[in-house]
């Protein structure tokens, strides 16, 4: 019963071994009458099979051509000098070692916190074009681009901007070259990438299409306030949503180049990470307003001030009411928030 299996086992041995010893092994098997001993031979052949493929060099000579063909110069030919192929185990170990080395180097780079010798640009920056470029050094007439590597690669602001740009789809599509700086060219051509974000093709961008995700079950009224807050607290969205109605309309998309230029505070023609990152004070103000300003008039009225939601921060709101009229405007709140953050 085991003979066909035994024969098959012999056939799947490496060719060199099989050609030389398979016949004799089969004869030994045939001469063994005891079923128990045959089972032993069967197991022995399995072990031999593994040993031959894993630990022994294959000695079958390669069929080398008699002469290298010279009449076909366009066809590359490869020949090895050695007739013995490397062991499978050696190849496996080599592959494993390569993976371990690669993983080790990557781990070292990731843990080096910028101290790793700057030999591999791709290791320090996700993409070569993410290298901070000294823009003032670039002139239109220059045929080459001078690249300046910061003394400390991936400074915290740049790292933060990198995360922020990935989180806000509008910034992600506007920053077409991925350098985390919105150049004049990117601002001028902002209309097309913004249109691409319009998933439902209704000609306008909702807060959801701009990256808003409430991530929980909230009533619609509260969600609307969160939506408005999201559009207000992200400077680039606030700039694009010029009428502050919580969405970027078709006309606002058309005027996006002009709106974006309002973020260029230092007037260098581009928007740097410092100009696009949301301000902590603004964020907190927008968050409080989204929670308490139920009628959306950008003021916290007496009634809103007395609501249950205002309870934990009522003291701060009372301090914010500078003119003691019982109403806290967005500006008063921003001043008080700024004071509390200092």
């Amino acid at each position: 019963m085991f003979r066909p299996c035994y024969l098959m086992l012999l056939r799947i041995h490496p060719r060199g071994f099989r050609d030389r010893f398979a016949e004799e092994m089969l004869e030994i098997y045939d001469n063994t009458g005891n079923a128990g001993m045959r089972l032993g031979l069967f197991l022995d052949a399995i072990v031999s099979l593994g040993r031959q493929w894993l630990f022994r060099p294959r000695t079958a000579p390669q069929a080398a051509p008699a002469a290298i063909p010279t009449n076909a110069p366009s066809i590359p030919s490869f020949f090895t000098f050695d007739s013995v192929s490397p062991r499978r185990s050696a190849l496996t170990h080599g592959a494993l070692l390569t993976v371990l080395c690669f993983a080790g180097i990557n781990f070292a780079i990731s843990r080096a916190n910028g101290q790793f010798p700057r030999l591999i640009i791709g290791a320090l920056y996700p993409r070569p074009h993410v290298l901070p470029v000294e823009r003032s050094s670039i002139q239109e007439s220059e045929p080459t681009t001078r690249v300046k590597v910061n003394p400390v690669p991936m400074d915290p602001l740049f790292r933060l901007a990198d995360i922020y740009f990935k989180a806000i789809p509008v910034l992600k599509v506007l920053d077409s070259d991925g350098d985390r700086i919105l150049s004049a060219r990117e601002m001028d051509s902002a209309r097309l990438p913004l249109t691409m974000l319009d998933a439902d093709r209704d000609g306008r961008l909702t807060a959801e299409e701009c990256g808003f995700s409430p991530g929980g079950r909230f009533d619609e009224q509260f969600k609307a306030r969160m939506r408005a807050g999201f559009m207000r607290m992200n400077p680039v969205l606030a700039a694009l949503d010029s009428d502050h109605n919580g969405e970027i309309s078709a006309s606002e998309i058309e005027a996006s180049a002009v709106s974006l230029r309002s973020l260029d505070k230092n007037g260098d023609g581009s928007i740097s990470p410092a100009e696009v990152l949301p301000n902590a004070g603004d964020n907190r103000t927008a968050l409080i307003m989204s929670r308490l300003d139920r009628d959306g008039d950008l003021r916290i009225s007496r009634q809103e001030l007395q609501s249950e939601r205002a309870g934990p921060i009522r003291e701060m709101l009372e301090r914010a009411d500078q003119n003691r009229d019982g109403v806290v405007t967005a500006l008063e709140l921003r001043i008080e928030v700024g004071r509390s953050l200092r």
Partner: protein
Amino acid sequence: MKEDAAHFLPLAAAPLHILLALAGENLHGYGIMQEVARQSDGRYKLGPGTLYDNLQRMMEQGLVEELGRSDGDESRRRYYRLSALGRGVLTAEISRLEGVVRDGRTRLNAGKPRRA
């Protein structure tokens, strides 16, 4: 030759038994298996896979030589014999084992409690 032989020592059980089996006469694979079983009183049994794997390696190392098929033998059996290097290696291994046995005996005798 001595230096060459020392390179192979100590021998594992299978090569040692194969060399011992071939030391007396030229044998085919099945004969080697039977001779190994006889020498060890049936306590050490070589399977054909282990045998031919070792024979292949020992032939590559020059310890064993293949003689081909015997004239009168119509079966598929090939005969193998010990090479000069193989004989040298076996001699060196036996000397080494003798040293181990001698040393072992000396130590055991030294550790025996003496009668008062």
